[in-house]
């Protein structure tokens, strides 16, 4: 069970503001995390706590394919990203590296910055403990559930490689 405070942003949060290219000369998750969302909300990194949730509106993570974006969000301690919709590369990168993401426009509309959120990833239930309301995220297709259960694509590929050998 995930529990944390919501950090809320608008539409088209692009990967350049999530992790600007000037920091892409490293692949170290901890170092990348210190610059997470720097060009959108420079205060984010000082106010985020482990378990917190990012809430975005439409097309979250649009732009570059840089996996550094979900990596820095995960390494900053964020437990889940909820949005109306995700850009497709950010979506697959998040599943591939084991960063939970949920599509749920009702929850996005019903969550304000600072609300306390509880999420059951197994059922996709999102509870806003501040308002007392709860929401159901769109369920993942079976293959993606398997990816999530395995903890990401590396473990999936490992399993497949072993099975094929």
């Amino acid at each position, binding site marked *: 069970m995930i529990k944390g405070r919501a950090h809320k942003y608008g539409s088209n949060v692009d990967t350049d503001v999530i992790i600007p290219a000037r920091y892409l000369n490293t692949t170290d998750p901890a170092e990348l995390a210190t610059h997470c969302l720097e060009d959108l909300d420079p205060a984010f990194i000082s106010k985020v706590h482990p378990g917190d949730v990012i809430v975005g509106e439409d097309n979250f993570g649009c732009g570059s394919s840089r996996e550094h974006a979900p990596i820095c969000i995960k390494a900053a301690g964020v437990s889940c990203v909820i949005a109306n919709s995700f*850009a497709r590369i950010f979506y697959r990168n998040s599943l591939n590296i084991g960063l939970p993401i949920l599509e749920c426009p009702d929850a996005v509309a019903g969550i304000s910055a600072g609300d306390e959120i509880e999420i059951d990833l197994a059922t996709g239930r999102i509870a806003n403990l501040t308002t007392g309301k709860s929401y159901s995220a769109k369920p993942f297709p079976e293959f993606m559930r398997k990816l999530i259960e395995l903890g990401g694509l590396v473990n999936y590929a490992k399993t497949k490689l072993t099975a094929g050998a």
Partner: protein
Amino acid sequence: MAQTITQKILAAHCGRESVEPGELINAGTDLVLGNDITAPIAIREFEKIGAPTVFDKNKVALVPDHSTPNKDIKSAELTKILREFARKHGIVNYFEVGRMGVEHTLIPDEGLVLPGDLVIGADSHTCTYGALGAFSSGVGSTDMAAAMALGEVWLKVPEAIKFVYSGKLREWVSGKDLILYTIGRIGVDGALYCSMEFTGETISAITMADRFTMCNMAIEAGGKNGIVEPDDKTLEYVNPRAQREYKVYRSDPDAVYRDVVEIDCSRLEPQVAFPHLPENTKPVSEAVDVRIDQAVIGSCTNGRIEDLRSAAKVIRGRKVHPDVRLLVIPATQEIFLQAIKEGLTEIFVEAGGAVSTPTCGPCLGGHMGVLAEGERSIATTNRNFVGRMGHVKSEVYLSNPAVAAASAVLGRIGSPEELDGVDK
């Protein structure tokens, strides 16, 4: 079952007769690509998977193009990871500085992508190769790692949107303007998860360079891939480069599309995308007194010889405005050499512009043209997000090469037609 070109290519790569939009498939890859920013993470994840070597050393391409020539020590360490991995695994298609190019121009020019191929690359602009009638799509580093190990990728079969372009283009209007106009019309998530199929008499009439530019920016509308059915022009480009068999696919006449968007191009003006999204497009005539500090001509979107010719035609015999820095970056070494032979390089240098070796550099605010606070650049690149080319309070305006060149002379955003009254 009637299928789109994209469905047919995906079906062929997972051993099926047909596939349906929404299905998740595992598809075989003809080429797996990465650059100096994305491949180091892919290589780290590849080691974790534990495969002894890559699935096929001829089908992996590594192109150090983003922070090269190495911009700092940390970047140098990253390109070193690529170089050593390439040596260790005998990767045939590793392209060193001096023999390289911006990946999405270099890879098709080297004949590494052919019609009917399925290509993934850890770079969002991998969708460029759809201009050849291939399925190509940007993915992340871990996808690249798994594909290097297994030779396959998980994909959701996309719905398709058909774009039908009609009418003859006016002078100075190019593929860049068609795609900017299209993104302006449907929005930056207007084709989210979808295949964008570019069709119509205007597409038949434009050059391969213009088609590459259009497919390159499919991602800026959220698209999974951009694609053009091969025709004689495609084959004329492909045949001298192809070193293996390929297959031409076409959409069935009764294939199903989520939408059909018809665009009359006959009255279209050159387009400019204002900050801070590629969908904020306006005709260039509506860019009134937008002063610029920099003009960038190059990138995987517009760094081809046709783009340089267009810019040189505008700038020939004129001078870059005293307040403007003009940067011209041929996309590959071969294009650079061609530009020298045709005298284009001389035109840019005599005008007071800087011509550089191929790099993605300024497009992503990496190096070779980073903006300071409050500065503004017009660029033939693909993104104008907040802070994209440097300081968070700088601005990027996207245009075609002729408009960027005209703007460099005028000192403000303007069209080549406005130069008619400016002395040479």
